[in-house]
């Protein structure tokens, strides 16, 4: 009798799991859950916030240790594919995961002082940052469109809440709602792209789609092309590429400044990882179709990002348009479709993380309690009254503009040389012109900082706390180091371009 039952119920074969491959995601997500538990157990005691901050830092450090192990493992033995092909850990993924971890630890550090200053509840905020970071690392190593979709939501949903976190400020709530509606819209567009790609190829695994398209000629291309276009549009929202950028200025302006920093740096790295991975692994044979589309996206992003920033008067809005323009440069790197281009995009994302977080960290330190006034006039005379902090902010702005001896210059140089190597001179020229235009609005902020105050200024003269000080100092050093001795960083990016 029992024999019959055992025979009838065939054992379910579960896919094997390489736990080290998913360990960084577990460390980050586990830290997020542990923070929520700590909050529930400790209530509002004096140690709650320090314990939660410590748990968050522990999660990032553990994830970093796992990434270090994984880097050496995949460099020696090749990519790790696990969980029935859902997860694929390769040098490319480990590199961008590390970029996300850098963004996360910086965001945690600058949030500590910010939350105290604005008297916001720390544990929930920190838990949301950790869960979002877990989604980012998961999406970077995902090798299946469904895993990518789920990870996309895991990283986005906490960000919607974080953008709306300051419930006393209407601007923050408005930013949260706008981000939510447009984010959910873009997720639905992305998912429809997944559905059409699945219908055309019969699979959602990136490698399986790539293999299928390599071995079969499609009788009817329309479904696949529509699917690819929708995937590109959905991801275009996340990387803030024009014409899918219109949420960016509002959300960057309204969200609490540390959240803006986190969104600008880490989210961009995660979204570009997916964009590059999907189109390089699943659709390499359709390069002739997606390269012109990316060309248009890159040009629009560069032009709109650089020109629209000129007429803005709010510093956070200007930096939002600058973030859009930076996406344009990264798109140039990817659009070339060459190894050198991908390497340039990776290096750009690394350096951009330091520049963006550093800039927003100083903006956060300079703003008064309330975090609601960031117009150029409010910052007038900041560099004269606070020379060190103001000087560092000007340094970050010049780095974003691409002045030599800063990382920003090396990042742009690599992108442009990759475009030149692949004879893509039109993009090269447009990119250089956009960089010249961008110089104006960066210098406009720098000029406001360095011009004498007229009495209408509105910035803080608090001492810089230890945590934010570490962030600003190390980010500035990193931007300087990548500019003065770019060799090791370029080498590192060169080793990280591969998917195998």
């Amino acid at each position, binding site marked *: 009798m029992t024999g019959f039952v055992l025979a009838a119920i065939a054992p379910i074969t579960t896919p094997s799991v390489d736990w080290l491959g998913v360990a960084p995601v577990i460390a980050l997500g586990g830290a997020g859950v542990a923070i929520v538990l700590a909050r529930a157990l400790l209530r509002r005691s004096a140690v709650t916030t320090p314990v939660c901050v410590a748990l968050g830092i522990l999660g990032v450090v553990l994830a970093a240790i796992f990434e270090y192990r994984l880097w050496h493992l995949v460099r020696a033995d090749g990519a790790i594919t696990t969980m029935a092909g859902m997860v694929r850990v390769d040098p490319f993924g480990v590199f961008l995961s590390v970029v996300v971890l850098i963004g996360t630890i910086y965001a945690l550090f600058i949030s500590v002082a910010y939350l105290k200053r604005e008297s916001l509840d720390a544990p929930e905020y920190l838990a949301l940052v950790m869960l979002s970071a877990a989604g980012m690392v998961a999406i970077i190593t995902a090798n299946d469109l*469904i895993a990518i*979709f*789920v990870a996309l*939501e895991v990283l986005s*949903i906490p960000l*919607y*809440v974080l953008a*709306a976190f300051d*419930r006393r400020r*209407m*601007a923050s*709530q*408005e*930013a*949260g*709602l*706008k981000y*939510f*509606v447009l984010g*959910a*819209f873009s*997720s*639905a*567009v992305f*998912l*429809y792209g*997944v*559905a*059409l790609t*699945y*219908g055309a190829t*019969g*699979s*959602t695994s990136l490698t399986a789609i790539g293999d299928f398209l390599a071995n079969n000629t499609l009788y009817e291309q329309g479904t696949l092309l529509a699917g690819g276009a929708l995937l590109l549009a959905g991801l275009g929202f996340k990387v803030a590429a024009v014409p899918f950028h219109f949420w960016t*200025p*509002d959300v960057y*302006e*309204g969200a609490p400044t540390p959240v803006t920093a986190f969104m600008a740096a880490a989210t961009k790295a995660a979204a570009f990882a997916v964009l590059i991975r999907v189109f390089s692994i699943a659709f390499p044979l359709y390069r002739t179709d997606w390269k012109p589309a990316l060309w248009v996206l890159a040009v629009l992003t560069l032009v709109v990002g650089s020109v629209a920033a000129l007429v*803005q*008067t*709010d510093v956070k*809005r200007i930096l939002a348009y600058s973030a859009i323009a930076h996406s344009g440069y990264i798109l140039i790197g990817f659009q070339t479709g060459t190894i050198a281009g991908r390497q340039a995009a990776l290096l750009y994302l690394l350096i951009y993380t330091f520049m963006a977080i550093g800039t927003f960290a100083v903006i956060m330190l300079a703003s008064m309690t309330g975090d609601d006034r960031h117009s150029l006039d409010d910052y007038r005379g900041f560099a004269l009254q606070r020379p060190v902090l103001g000087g560092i902010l000007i340094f970050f702005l010049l780095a974003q503009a691409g002045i030599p001896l800063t990382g920003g210059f090396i990042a742009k140089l690599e992108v442009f040389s990759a475009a030149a190597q692949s004879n893509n001179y039109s993009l090269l020229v447009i990119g250089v012109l956009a960089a010249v235009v961008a110089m104006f609005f960066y210098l406009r902020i720098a000029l406001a900082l360095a011009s004498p105050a007229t009495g209408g200024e509105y910035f803080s003269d608090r001492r810089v706390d230890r945590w934010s000080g570490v962030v600003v100092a190390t980010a500035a050093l990193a931007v300087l180091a990548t500019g003065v001795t770019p060799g090791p960083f370029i080498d590192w990016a060169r080793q990280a371009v591969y998917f195998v």
Partner: protein
Amino acid sequence: MMAAIQITDTYYLVLSAALFSIGAVGVLVRRNVLVMFMSVELMLNAVNLTFVAFAKTLNDTSGQVIVFFTLVVAAAEVAVGLAIIVAIFRRRRGMTADDMRVLQG
């Protein structure tokens, strides 16, 4: 005598494309935040229909499994989205998307 209409998989795909378009237009055109939110749900469910239709065409169950993932994600989105909307409505009753203009420029 009417000829019997053969309902093929294409019908489902066209229907889901139409539903998706209605949802997309709804998000872009309607000003009531809740209606915009419902339109997003319509888009997600249109995609579910696409998945199921393709699963039948391809004779592959994974398309049907994906629908469960979408449902779970949509539920999580509803929870967060409604929470944000409620938080805003507590401050400003009867708010539409046009009233959201603290941030513009």
